[in-house]
């Protein structure tokens, strides 16, 4: 029972169903549309400058390209979640645990395999945001910034962030095995709860630093640029954490969710 065989089996599980490429396709198209739209808006090709919050031009390209993670992170998160809840829903945990009765190894293999898929999602999302963003910059005659080495480091951190989001998803799935409940929780948290908390935290002085520990904020910190930060939604009085701190916070979420999920649902009786 070697670990690499288990990881390959988890790869096969993802690749033999359709959801992975459907989510990837939607992610790339969605991110490309947003990046194109924001590039046009901030680049000044439509609307007067006064209607749009000003973004310093040297940061503009980073903000536009990082739509890939700032908006797209929910996709690897969802894929990771579904990779676990699907096993509960279709009762494939039975053959999975029959083939590998050491359940902890299965969960570890899942995290590794899904992290790779998260990274692939990261690359896909960047292709979408850079393609659309740079395209708009070309039309509006602005510098696309791609000659800047720091930007490529940001891209690398974006891929890492997306991998971590997929790993968090695995933990969330193990924690909430009910597929419908897990989907609702992921969407509600990422689309409503966290944005509201981040906005509130930015206005309340004592909560400002706490806002940095929210997973979405940690992800943005890891990447180093975000449409949220640039619009002043999470600026306020908060001290922005370093990228590696954001990465550690994100990784901590993945570890805590997975360990709790293992203890609560993954180890329990399969009936």
């Amino acid at each position, binding site marked *: *029972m*070697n670990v690499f*065989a*288990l990881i*390959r*089996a988890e790869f*096969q*599980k993802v690749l*033999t*169903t*359709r959801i992975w490429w459907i989510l990837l396709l939607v992610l790339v198209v969605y991110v490309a549309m947003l990046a194109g739209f924001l590039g046009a808006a901030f680049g000044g090709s439509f609307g007067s400058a006064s209607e749009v919050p000003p973004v310093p031009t040297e940061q503009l390209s980073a903000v536009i390209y990082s739509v890939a993670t700032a908006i797209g992170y929910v996709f690897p998160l969802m894929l990771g979640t579904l990779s676990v809840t*699907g096993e509960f829903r*279709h*009762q*494939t*945990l*039975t*053959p*999975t*645990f*029959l*083939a*590998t*009765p*050491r359940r902890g190894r299965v969960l570890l293999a899942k995290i590794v395999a899904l992290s790779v898929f998260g990274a692939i999602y990261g690359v896909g999302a960047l292709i979408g945001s850079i393609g659309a963003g740079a395209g708009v910059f070309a039309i509006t005659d602005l510098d696309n910034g791609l000659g800047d080495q720091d930007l490529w480091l940001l891209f690398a951190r974006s891929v890492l962030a997306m991998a971590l989001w997929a790993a968090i998803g695995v933990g969330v799935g193990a924690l909430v095995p009910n597929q419908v409940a897990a989907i609702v929780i992921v969407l509600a948290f990422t689309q409503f709860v966290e944005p509201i908390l981040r906005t509130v935290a930015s206005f309340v002085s004592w909560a400002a630093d706490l806002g940095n520990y929210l997973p979405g904020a940690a992800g943005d910190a890891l990447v180093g640029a975000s449409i949220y930060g640039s619009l002043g939604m999470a600026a306020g009085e908060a001290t922005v954490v370093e990228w590696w701190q954001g990465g550690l916070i994100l990784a901590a979420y993945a570890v805590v969710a997975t360990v709790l999920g293992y203890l609560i649902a993954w180890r329990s*009786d*399969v*009936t």
Partner: protein
Amino acid sequence: MPNRTTIEIRGLSKDFGSVSAVSDLSFTVQPGTVTGFLGPNGAGKTTTLRMLLGLVRPTSGTATFGGTSYRDLRAPLATVGTALEAASFHPGRSARNHLSIYATAAAIPQARVGAVLEQVGLGAYVDRRVGGYSLGMRQRLGLALALLGDPGVLVLDEPVNGLDPEGIRWIRTFMRELAAEGRTVLVSSHLLSEVQQSVDRLVVISKGRLVYEGGLQGLDTETRVAVDSPDRGMLDAALLAAGAEFTSTDAGLIVSSMTAAEVGAIAQRSGVALSLLQTQQGGLEQAFLDLVGEGSQP
């Protein structure tokens, strides 16, 4: 040829909250035999099998394959093949992809996937999505997974469910062949008649407890005698006088303690004319139902 492995269940118990699903169950399944694991629905058969396979944690007791628990088997799928009752596959996967995943995880050569699908008669449907399979085809796919690792032990939970008569005949022959090769076959069912032609031994449980372990011939198949007369009252008195145990039914008097010859002699001595004298075989199914405590219920 796989190793000959004995299934050993020792003092196995499982409580779900305050409900005791399995209580202090012990039995042994020998290699080279087909052992029927019988009991009515809800008797604890599936819970017992899931404990044996490490899917459900026992409250107490052990279940091992030649002394090794499922969790500690070095090559589980190559040691024990399992087909459980529940349909356990993603409807969007093909049969080939479904099996291929577990072959990868268990380091079983991918060539086995096509071979076992051919063996269970799904050769023509390997690339079709499992969601479109009939119940019978799903049962066969379950069996294909059980055979994937060429295991020496097979644990089959209600494999006859959903099969057509041709499929039922096929699986009976199949189980006999597997046992003849020296494998250990444990097959569960809630109906004795489904498996009585293919099993060598029986383990019968009821309400989570063992009620019988042994051969088919050991089941108590008591014979009874049905007797009737145009003058029921006289026959009744004669039998009472002779000390016979009997019950009165619409179809006559059912005598449980005598042979037909003895009953006939009593009638002759008392001068009662008989309209019916017939020996009735209790039958295996009746004996099984008596064992699990459902025979006497209306």
